[in-house]
């Protein structure tokens, strides 16, 4: 199940099941979105990206869905494995409007725990 609140949201799934991690982004004009995976003691690692002119993109075992109407992004992981245990971040890129605005803004993160 998923828990939210003051602590990092956590999603626990059984090995072999599919995982869905959700993210609400803030800027309706953002044109590029990325999912990152951060394992313990490491830096965030690029998983998959999607541009605003698409609503779905598939990678190896991962799918990103973009719903611009409700500013929602999701990451689906098929056949979740113990190695998928990590913190997952969504990030949005607002449109460039001059110096000081070109940056990725990260969401709060979701911790995925895979139960063997």
């Amino acid at each position, binding site marked *: 199940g998923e828990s939210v609140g003051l602590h*990092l949201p956590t999603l626990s799934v059984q090995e072999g099941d599919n995982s869905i991690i959700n993210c609400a982004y803030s800027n309706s004009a953002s044109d*590029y979105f990325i999912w*990152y995976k951060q394992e313990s*003691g490491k*830096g*965030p690692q*690029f998983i998959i990206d999607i541009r605003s002119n698409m609503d779905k993109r598939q990678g190896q075992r991962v799918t990103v869905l973009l719903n611009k109407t409700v500013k929602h992004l999701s990451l689906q992981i098929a056949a979740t494995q113990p190695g998928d245990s990590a*913190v997952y971040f969504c990030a949005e890129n607002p449109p460039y409007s001059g110096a000081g605005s*070109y940056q*990725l803004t990260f969401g709060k993160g979701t911790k995925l725990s895979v139960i063997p």
Partner: protein
Amino acid sequence: DTAVSQTPKYLVTQMGNDKSIKCEQNLGHDTMYWYKQDSKKFLKIMFSYNNKELIINETVPNRFSPKSPDKAHLNLHINSLELGDSAVYFCASSQRQGGPYGYTFGSGTRLTVV
């Protein structure tokens, strides 16, 4: 070869000290960044440099100063360290030309101020 490398990986220091964290990227990217990650894993942009020009400076105390000797390096210098500076600091790089593109992150520097 490590794409984005930062040193040291761990840094323990006393309040009031001055310290630096180094970052180097060998990806040929034109923009580099520093992010701070707090205990709740929230990642917040601190600085970015594009072609040696500071283009972002969020509400970061002026005790923090980025220094970029060349396009491949962006070091972070911190003066008069405070307890609240304890966090994990990540360096990242990206290519802006033709972008946007995702960032490549280093493995982080865990700073502990005692």
